[in-house]
């Protein structure tokens, strides 16, 4: 039996093994797999032994460093700084409230996803992945606050928040089906409402005192900048992509100009533009402060790349779709909104999420223009004489954090792709 070559760009690595003539058997023993994978030939065996030695040596070295030499106090002492920067202590209850709301809403949405199975689900209420996720959450809630040496009251808070998430998942999963439609609508409206309310909680308003953006920092600033840019760049990307494919020359050329201007320059030079020139271009008093200027630069930056992703999606939709929609009597906006864009955006999804992941990573560039995002905070911490030379501990922690966030986004994107795939038959 020959396996088909993997599709270009597909994420599975299907080995092509033209040199091994042995036919594959369906059932193989554990040792047999090991033998074929690692010791198929003499050369393979040699490479395998070398690689195993190399991996063992690096693993031992890393573990000995992490549990022996490394001094993690730099992280433990500065947890609050890394999390929220210099957000005033007496106002931090607002952020806790936000975390609680996010946990409750996430749990509810998660449960409802399982309560109303779609094509890609078997309808199981607790699929294996979900049980795994809950176990992982439980482990994180138990281990992370302890590893960060948080005080007992703080540990208790994190346990309660995790408990809330899982409880909402359980409740919504079991009884979501019998909830009144009005409540369900409220949950789907919940995310945009929560985002707006979160902004108020962070920035102030509705009777809460104002917290200046210069006091936002750490993970809070990173997540805020990334989510702001991602949300606002999406409409920009769609509009500019439509403009670029428009038959009207003015729309087309202004879109092309915008996209090529942004894509031609490194992000750092655009941030430079935002910090040093934007102030001159706006009427006096209009110029937002440094944090928001950077946020807008990130938004327009991401918008241009997103436009290219959406454009690729648009060109993958057969022109007959638009023509059919138009001949059914739909107006141009209606045809785009109901027929073309849903198909185009589904095709553009992997590229768009890839763009969002790289935007999340690009927020680290804010530290180069003096903002205190996660990396900027890390650099100020390491400039503190008390923690001088703790580069390895801090950078490694940040790397793990970013890796987890980006990998999770990637996983989520793949799950969403499967969910939206119309050709997918239920398992």
């Amino acid at each position, binding site marked *: 039996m020959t396996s088909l070559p993997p599709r270009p760009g597909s994420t599975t690595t299907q080995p092509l093994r033209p040199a091994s003539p042995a036919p594959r058997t369906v059932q193989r023993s554990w040792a047999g797999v090991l033998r074929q994978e690692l010791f198929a030939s003499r050369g393979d065996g040699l490479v395998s032994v070398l690689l195993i030695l190399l991996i063992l040596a690096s693993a031992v070295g890393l573990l000995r460093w992490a549990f022996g030499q490394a001094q993690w106090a730099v992280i433990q002492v500065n947890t609050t700084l890394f999390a929220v920067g210099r957000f005033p202590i007496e106002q931090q209850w607002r952020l806790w409230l936000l975390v609680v709301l996010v946990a409750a809403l996430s749990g509810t949405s998660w449960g409802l996803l399982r309560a109303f199975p779609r094509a890609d689900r078997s309808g199981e209420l607790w699929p294996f992945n979900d049980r795994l996720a809950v176990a992982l959450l439980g482990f994180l809630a138990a281990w992370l606050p302890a590893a960060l040496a948080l005080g007992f009251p703080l540990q208790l808070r994190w346990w309660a928040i995790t408990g809330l998430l899982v409880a909402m998942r359980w409740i919504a999963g079991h009884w979501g089906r019998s909830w009144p439609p009005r409540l369900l609508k409220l949950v789907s409206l919940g995310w945009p409402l929560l985002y707006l309310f979160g902004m108020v909680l962070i920035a102030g308003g509705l009777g809460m005192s104002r917290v200046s953006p210069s006091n936002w920092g750490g993970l809070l600033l990173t997540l805020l900048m990334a989510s702001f840019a991602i949300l606002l760049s999406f409409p920009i990307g769609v509009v500019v992509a439509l403009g670029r494919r428009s038959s009207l020359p003015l729309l087309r050329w202004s879109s092309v100009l915008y996209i090529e201007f942004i894509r031609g*320059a490194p992000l750092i030079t655009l941030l430079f533009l935002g910090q040093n020139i934007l102030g001159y271009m*706006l009427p006096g008093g209009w110029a937002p402060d440094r944090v928001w200027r950077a946020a807008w630069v990130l938004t327009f930056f991401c918008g241009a790349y997103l436009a290219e992703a959406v454009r690729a999606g648009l060109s993958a939709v057969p022109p007959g779709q638009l023509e059919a929609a138009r001949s059914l009597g739909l107006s141009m906006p209606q045809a785009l909104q109901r027929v073309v864009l849903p198909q185009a955006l589904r095709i553009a999804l992997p590229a768009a999420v890839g763009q969002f992941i790289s935007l999340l990573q690009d927020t680290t560039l804010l530290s180069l223009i003096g903002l205190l995002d996660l990396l900027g905070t890390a650099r100020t911490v390491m400039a503190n004489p008390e923690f001088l030379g703790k580069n390895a501990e801090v*950078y490694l922690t940040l790397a793990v954090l*970013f890796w987890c966030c980006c990998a999770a986004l990637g996983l989520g994107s793949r799950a969403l792709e499967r969910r939206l795939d119309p050709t997918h038959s239920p398992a």
Partner: protein
Amino acid sequence: MINTLERIPWWRDRRVMPWIVQAVVGLVLLVVISLLVGNLVRNLTGAGLLLSWRWLGQPASFDVAESLIPFDASMPYWRALLVGLVNSLRVIVVGLVGATLLGTAVGMASFSSNGLLRRLARVYVEVIRNIPLLLQLLFWYFVVFLALPNGTAAFQLPGVVVSKSGLYLAWFAQGFSWQGPELVNGVWQAPLRLSVEFTALLTGLITYSGAFIAEVVRGGIASVPLGQWEAATSLGLHWSASMRSVVLPQALRVIVPGLNSQYISLAKNSALAVAVGYVDLYSVSETTLNQTGRALEVFLLLLGSYLIIDLLISAVMNGVNQLVQIRER
């Protein structure tokens, strides 16, 4: 009857509507742009910083740590910017070559018959792609290279010495005699010394872009039908021979366009040099701005330089693309 047909409402008239849409969009763009530019001109005039290039001839009065062309602080700003551009080009060109080699090797390793090697290639790509480049650069510089030992304790291989003070390589000395690094009074000397900043930046860029290029190469190789492998094998070619002379030439058609965009992003990413203290174009521009306050001119120069670099890479890669396309008769 005819009358009702002719009376098309104007918003459904294809002769009218496109012009109205364009007029509205054009008007909005015109108003926004003229407001922005008007403010810019007014504010810059007020600050005495309106577009002028005369400052380029004034002495820069700052020093540059490393330079391929002669430079000292008494030389003018344009010379300093040129030094930065040359330094940028140096790291871009070396980085392109290194990232291509690494990426091709890793991309081919994804098809190895050795399962461990295949998985290791996967792990490398997944680790590198999910960590911000800036973080990686800082890691290479502060954690790896600045922690290296100096003097006699430095890592030594035949012809190569890696130490905290830089990378020392064997190269042709005067009179085309091959000369390796040697320790003189506790300090390494070699015909070719790369600063530790340059080495850290280069390592970071190569490992980062290498992961992306590996994905491009993997996609390219995967696009070659399995039958090609089987045909090559049945002709008696080894894995390496079939890869080299049957599969890769066909994969290149898919790989080259993907490489183009990776090369351009490597060139743009090289501007992060400023984080590890390598004096590239962006870094010189930043210093220049701090000294002269000429934000607009500096930005235009930066934008223009990177645009030209991008276009150059695209032009070369388009040429390469023409070469690797299948010519049928």
